[in-house]
C-alpha cells in the first residue's frame, strides 16, 4: 500500500539551502582563479583595446581620446607595412615547411620499427630547448667566416653570405631557426594523429585493393589526419606570429627593418619609445591575426565534421 497518510503541507526551504551551499562552495573554490583571470588576462586584454583608442604615452599625467588615430597613423607608416609584410613572409615560410617536414618525419618514423625512439627524441629535443640560448648558438653558426653554415656551404660549393646581416637573407635565417624548433612539435602531433588511425582501416583498404604505400597514404592516412593537420597548421601559425626572441637577440629587427616583426615592433614602440597607445594598437593588430587563425581553424574543422 502507498503510505500516504501525511499532512499535505509541503515545506520548500531545503532546495534553496542546498543549492545555495553548493553555489557558495563553487564561488569560493573558483573565486581566486576568476579574480586573477580578470586582473591578469581578460581585463588587460580589454584594456589594450581601450588604450589603443587613446593618445597616452607611458608616464604622461593626462590621457585623451584619440579614436582611430593610432590606426590611421599605422596605416600611413611605412615601417608598419614593412613589419606586417615581414611577419607574414616569416609565417608563410615557417608554417608550410615545418608542417610538411613534421608530417614527413612522422610518416617515416612510423613506417619502420627500428630506432623510432631515437629519431623521435632527436627531432623533439629542439622543442624543449631554451630558444634564447640556442639563438646564440645559431648566431655562431651563422658567423660569416667561422660559422658552421658557411663552412658547410663553401664545402658544398654553395654561395655564402653574412646571413644575419644581409637584408635579403636575415628573415629567412631566423625562419630556419623557427623551423628547427617547430618541426618536432608538428611531428609529435602528427605521430599522435597516426596512432589514432584504426589499423583495420588499412586492412579494409588493402582488401579493397589500395595496398601500395601511396594509395594507403592517399585513401586512408591523409584523410584521417585531416583534423590533426588543421590543428598543427593553426598551432604552428600562431606560434610563428609570436616570433620575438630570435629577432630581439640576433638582429634587433635589422638590418634596415628587414626582420622587424609585429611583436618586436610592439615591444620597441611600447617599451623603448614608451608610446603605449600606439603599441597597444599594434598589439590589437597582432591579436586580430591570432583570432583570425583560430576562427579559420574552427571553420575548417566544422566543415570537415559535416562531411565526415
Amino acid at each position, binding site marked *: 500500500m502507498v503510505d500516504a497518510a*501525511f499532512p499535505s503541507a509541503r515545506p520548500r526551504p531545503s532546495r534553496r539551502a542546498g543549492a545555495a*551551499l553548493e553555489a557558495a562552495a563553487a564561488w569560493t573554490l573558483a573565486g581566486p582563479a576568476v579574480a586573477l583571470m580578470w586582473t591578469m588576462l581578460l581585463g588587460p586584454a580589454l584594456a589594450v583595446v581601450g588604450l589603443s583608442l587613446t593618445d597616452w604615452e607611458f608616464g604622461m599625467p593626462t590621457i585623451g581620446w584619440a579614436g582611430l588615430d593610432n590606426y590611421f597613423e599605422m596605416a600611413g607608416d611605412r615601417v608598419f607595412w614593412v613589419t606586417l609584410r615581414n611577419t607574414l613572409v616569416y609565417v608563410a615560410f615557417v608554417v608550410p615547411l615545418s608542417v610538411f617536414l613534421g608530417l614527413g618525419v612522422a610518416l617515416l618514423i612510423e613506417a619502420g620499427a627500428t630506432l623510432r625512439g631515437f629519431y623521435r627524441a632527436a627531432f623533439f629535443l629542439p622543442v624543449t630547448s631554451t630558444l634564447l640560448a640556442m639563438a646564440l648558438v645559431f648566431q655562431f653558426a651563422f658567423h660569416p667566416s667561422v660559422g658552421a653554415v658557411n663552412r658547410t656551404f663553401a664545402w658544398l660549393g654553395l654561395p655564402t653570405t653574412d646571413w644575419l646581416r644581409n637584408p635579403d637573407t636575415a628573415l629567412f635565417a631566423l625562419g630556419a631557426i623557427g623551423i628547427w624548433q617547430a618541426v618536432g612539435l608538428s611531428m609529435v602531433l602528427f605521430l599522435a594523429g597516426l596512432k589514432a588511425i584504426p589499423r583495420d582501416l588499412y586492412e579494409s583498404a588493402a582488401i579493397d585493393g589500395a595496398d601500395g604505400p601511396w594509395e594507403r597514404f592517399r585513401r586512408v592516412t591523409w584523410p584521417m589526419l585531416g583534423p590533426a593537420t588543421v590543428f598543427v597548421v593553426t598551432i604552428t601559425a600562431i606560434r610563428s606570429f609570436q616570433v620575438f626572441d630570435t629577432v630581439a637577440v640576433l638582429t634587433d629587427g635589422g638590418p634596415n627593418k628587414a626582420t622587424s616583426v609585429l611583436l618586436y615592433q610592439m615591444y620597441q614602440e611600447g617599451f623603448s619609445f614608451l608610446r603605449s597607445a600606439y603599441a597597444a594598437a599594434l598589439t590589437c593588430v597582432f591579436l586580430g591575426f591570432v583570432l583570425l587563425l583560430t576562427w579559420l581553424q574552427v571553420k575548417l574543422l566544422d566543415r570537415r565534421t559535416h562531411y565526415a
Partner: protein
Amino acid sequence: MAEIVIDGLIKSFGATPVLRDVSLRVADGEFVSLLGPSGCGKTTLLRIVAGLETQDAGTVRIGARAVDDLAPKARDVAMVFQSYALYPYMTVAENIGLPLQMRRLSRAQRLPLIGASLPGTRAIRADIEAEIVKTAEGLGIGHLLDRRPGQLSGGQRQRVALARAMVRHPAAFLMDEPLSNLDAKLRVKARAEIAGLHRRLGATFVYVTHDQTEAMTMSDRVAVMMEGRIAQFAAPQTLYDDPETLAVAAFIGAPEINVLPAKRRGDGAVEVAGAVWSAALPDAGGAELHAGVRPESWRIAPRAAHADPAWLAAEVRHIEHLGSETLIHCALARGGHAVVARVEPALAAGFRAGDGASLAPDTTKVLYFGADGARLRGARPMAARIQPALAHHG
C-alpha cells in the same frame, strides 16, 4: 538505527519531472527495495535521502530528525554505489578508514606530519585501525587491506564498498544497484550475503534495483516505482499475487503476465477472445477490461477444439525447456494474441511446435484491470462452479 520517512517529495530536472509526490515510510530495521525500470526515479529518490540531490518540495526524516537542510555527511547514512566509488589511489584500509578519520579526527589532527604529533591523534588512529581490521575480517577481506582497488576482483571491490559503509555504524544503509557490476553467479552469492548482513546488523536498508529477483529475494517490502510515483509498496508475494495496477502486474514476474483484452457480460462472466470465464466483478456490463493470467495459472490441453466455452483455441509456436519447468508459447486462434504457459516438464511432453492446443486459466487466479489499468476486485470468485470441468486433461 532509525526509520526513514519520506513525505511528498517532488523533483524535476529542468522541465522533466522525475519524482511526482512520493511518500514512503521505511520502518526501523526494515529492508526495503526501490524497484522499477530505468528512469523511474528510484535512484534520484535514494540520492535525495542521502542528501546528494536536493528535492524541489517535500521532506525526508531519518529517525527523529528532518534532514532536508543537512549535508550528506551529517545525515548518518552510508551509501554503497553501483560503481563502488572506491578511491583508486588509496589502499583498501585507507578506503575503509576514511569515513572514520573524517569523523573522529579534528581538522588539525588530519594534517600530514603535524597531525600525528598532536595529543590524542595516535590513540584515535589506533582505534580506527582496529575497527578497519575488524570490519574487513567480518567480510572476509582482511588479507586485502594493503591492496589498491585496481588490484581487486569485482566481488572483492563490492565487499570493500560494503565495509566502508559498515565501519561507521550508520543509522541506515542506502544501496544503489550494488550488485549490477557482478557476474551472474557472484550475484546470487552476494544476494544471500547482503540479506545475511541485514539480519546481522539489524539496520535499516534501502536498496535500489531494477532487478526484480534481487528485490523479491532480499526485501521485507518492495516499493515499485513507475514514472516518478510509487505504484505499489508491499511485501514481495503480495506484489506478485495481488498487484494494484496492470503496470505492476506486468513488471513483476518473468515470463511476464499474459494480458488479454476482455469484455464484461451482463451475467457477470467475462468474455476473452471468444471464451467465457466466470468472474466476480463489480457490476459494469459491457465495460472493456484487461484480463491478466500468470503463466503458471494456465491449464493446457492438446487439440485446438474444446467443448468447454472457457477454453481458448490456440496453436503452439515454440517450446522452451528450462529443466525444472517448461514454457509453452502459443498464439490464440482468435485475435492471434501471444500467450505463455508455464507447465511441468512431464506435462509438456505431448506438445510440439505447430500443434493445436487449448488453454484455460484457473479463474480464481485471473487478475482483472479496468481500461485505466487499475485493479478490479470483486466479491469471491465463482471458482467452484467451473472447477470440475477442468479436472482431467492430458
